[in-house]
């Protein structure tokens, strides 16, 4: 998993719960990297799982909700890191529609070893989008947060519903209906 996810996650924890919680979850998680992360390197996915689990215990919030919240946070971070990517689009649906074919292609240019989820478009209209999220990580709540934040970014609103095609969340169908 790319280092930026770890750095941003810890940033969010620090902002939300303070440095003490950050230190605590790192200490408790027994990480091979010892909690040292740089955005340009790559780390074990399990470290993220450990960190989230630890945080969940620490603050008594469910892992899913934590991941969902992190999705909101991550969108802004990524936007700050690569503003030119978002500037290419003038609508949230347009951006979502292009994740697979455009944004991920650019990611691959910079980080050829990145392991990215896939978003397969099932149906698209001017105001709605249906797509399937597939990833061995099962981080669909992260995707959920990111999607919602996308609309927020463009000052739009949408109903985002999802339906687990596989119980472990490795394949999830998202249905997005924009309004307003």
């Amino acid at each position, binding site marked *: 998993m790319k280092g930026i996810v770890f750095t941003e996650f810890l940033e969010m924890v620090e902002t939300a719960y303070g440095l003490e919680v950050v230190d605590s979850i*790192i200490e408790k998680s027994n990480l091979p990297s010892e909690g040292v992360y740089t955005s340009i390197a790559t780390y074990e996915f399990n470290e993220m799982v450990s960190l989230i689990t630890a945080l969940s215990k620490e603050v008594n919030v469910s892992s899913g909700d934590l991941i969902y919240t992190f999705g909101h946070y991550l969108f802004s971070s990524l936007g700050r890191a690569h503003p030119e990517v978002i500037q290419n689009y003038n609508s949230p649906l347009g951006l979502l529609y292009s994740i697979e074919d455009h944004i991920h292609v650019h990611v691959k240019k910079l980080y050829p070893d990145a392991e990215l989820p896939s978003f397969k478009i099932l149906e698209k209209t001017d105001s709605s989008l249906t797509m399937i999220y597939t990833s061995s990580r099962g981080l669909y709540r992260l995707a959920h947060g990111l999607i919602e934040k996308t609309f927020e970014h463009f000052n739009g609103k949408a109903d985002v519903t999802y339906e687990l095609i596989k119980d472990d969340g490795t394949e999830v169908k998202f249905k997005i209906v924009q309004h307003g």
Partner: protein
Amino acid sequence: MDSKEVLLLKKALERQKKARQQAERILESKSKELYDVSRHLKETNNKLETLLSEKTSELDGVFMNILDPYVLMDLQFNVINMNTSAKDLFQKDHTKENVNLARFIHPHFQQYTMESMQSLLDVGILKNYRAKIRVAQGKEIWVQINASLIFNNQRKPIAAQGIIRDITGEMEVKELLAEQKKQLDIIVENSPLGILLTKDNRIIKANETFMQMLGYSHNELKNISLKDISAPEVQTGPCRLLDQMNQGILEEFTAIKKFYKKDGSFILTKTRMNAVTNQHGTINYQVGIIEDISKERKAEMELKASESRLSTLISNLHSGVLLEDENRKIALTNKMFCNLFNIPVNPDDLKGADCSESAEQSKVFFKNPDAFVKRIDEILEERVTVLSDELELVDGRVLERDYIPIYNDGIYKGHLWAYHDVTISKNYKKNLEAQREKYSSIIANMNLGLVEVDNNDVIQMVNQSFCQMSGFKEHELLGKVASKVIQVSNKELIPSKNKRRLSGASDSYEIEVQNKDGRNRHWLISGAPRYNESGTVIGSIGIHLDITDQKNLEFQKEKLLKELEISNTGLQEYAHIVSHDLKSPLRSISSLATWLFEDYKDVLDEGGKQQLQMMQEKVASMDKLIHGILEYSTANSSELDNTCVNLNEVITEIQEVIYIPDHVEIVVADILPNIIADNTKMHQLFQNIIGNAVVHIEKEKGIVEVIAQDKNEYWQFTVKDNGVGIPKKYHEKIFKIFQSVGNNERSTGIGLSIVKKIVDRYEGEIWVESKIGEGTEFHFTLKKNLNSHKNEESIDYKSKKIAS
């Protein structure tokens, strides 16, 4: 800041430092990687550049020094560089003047050149561009160009380079070859001889003539071996020759070969095979020239046959032939010649014999020996064809002699004597003359009128009798149209008969004509077509017989018949009237006698009563007699209404009608046949005979038997009784009218005469066999098929059917 917080920050800072160091390490290693790659690229680039410049200079040298013309031009055909050969070719130097290659292109190749240029731009190379160009002094040469594009460093085409080859000579050779091939093909295809190219017995090529000879198509021939379709005329001949040729022993041979056609027949050919060898002496091809000699062969055979026929003909000729050569030696003679002059040797043995003395030797045969010898000398002197000299021999024969001199290329080679025995034909002519005279006089004097007309009915010939018949003189008839001179009552008849004559039909017919005196005559004419020698109808011959007298007799006969019919009818009516008129006073007498008896029976004594009774009986007898006469008169005259009559029914009916005494029985042993006859007449016939029989039986038990027998054309019936019998002397008499045997009250003497009449009408016979006191047998026959023969079969069939 408390110590815990400081500790946390320190830890966080420591992590951040480590992260930075980690990131810096990653970046350093990436930067090193990049440096290595760029250095490697630079080196490669340098290497390539060196290579390119080396190659370019190398190529420059090569192109400038190659023997073939080389040109470098821009895309507007302006020459940038060209080698010496190119300068020589175009006779231009680009260093001295601007040379544009487009100007050289022959007008016919402008379009092609533009297309080629486009393809060069599209593909980058151009191969085997072939065109004509015009160089100085209007000289035209063929060139072949292989070209490629040259690009600048932006990969844009900026120029084209090409190597030019002068292929004028090549093209000329090619054209020449093509021309020669064409000429050769024309020769081969139009050759009257079959031409064949074979290799290892396989046919590679054959010309049209050969294909026509055998009827195979080109493709069919390709799959056929020479040995499949040909055979040597003599089995061991050229096949072996062909094998020898294949082995390289023979170079050529000529042989008579059979070739089998596609349809299975064969032709005879004179075949010449030549082996075409390459420089190593092995055979490349065999060329066969095939001449169809079937016709020549046939002609040769026919000639031989006709020669042999001719000699047979001469030897069997009905003319004596003697062929002498220029030295008067016999070259040929035949059997007939020997026969004519009684020379008792075989004609072949006479060959070579000298004839110079023969005239002198054989003059004794002739009536006029000296004239004979003199005439021969004369003829031999003149040597001119002489035909039909007539010679009379002492033994009465007459010979005709022809002399024909024989020249070959104007040189006298001998002569031919031909003698024909014309004795018979001479006599024949005489006989013919005599016969003609004989028949002419018959024709002239015969009692039948003879007229010959042509197709236009113009009279060509008449005889004396016809003149007498018609009343015209001969000169009044000849050359005239027959129908105009002789007036015929039925105008349409003669032309229609003449028309029939044209189609070759002959027939006889009667006509009514007016002779010269205007009297009507009846003629019977037999006409037949006249033919000329070639068998076409040229007119008709009519033989005329005057039948006026017969005609008149015929008319008289018809008249008499009519009168007879009228008088017959009259008589019949008379018989009716008489019998009727006689019957009514009879009935009056009968009534009066009855009344007399009724009214006065008390007054009359026995004698009177008996006399009245007798009177009644006589009246009844008289009535019967009249009835009989009436029947008799109609038996002959009334029409026979012949139908199918069931005789069994007839007999049954008769039994019901007639009086049969109690002791008599009528017996029909076998079933009687159905016959074709008049029902009423059959009733009368059987009723009269049976009626007669039953009343003449005095025996205790009387039997009358009816028997029928089939006698092919006739039915024979027998009515047999066991009655009193008829004395012999009456056997003929009884069939005559008013004759009866004895003095029987019931017999009128008419019955059997009616029977006789009916039997006569059925062309039958009736006779009697009888013995006094034992019985009588009446036999009579009736013809089965009385009427026309036409109905014979069907009626016969029908009656048989019914009978069975």
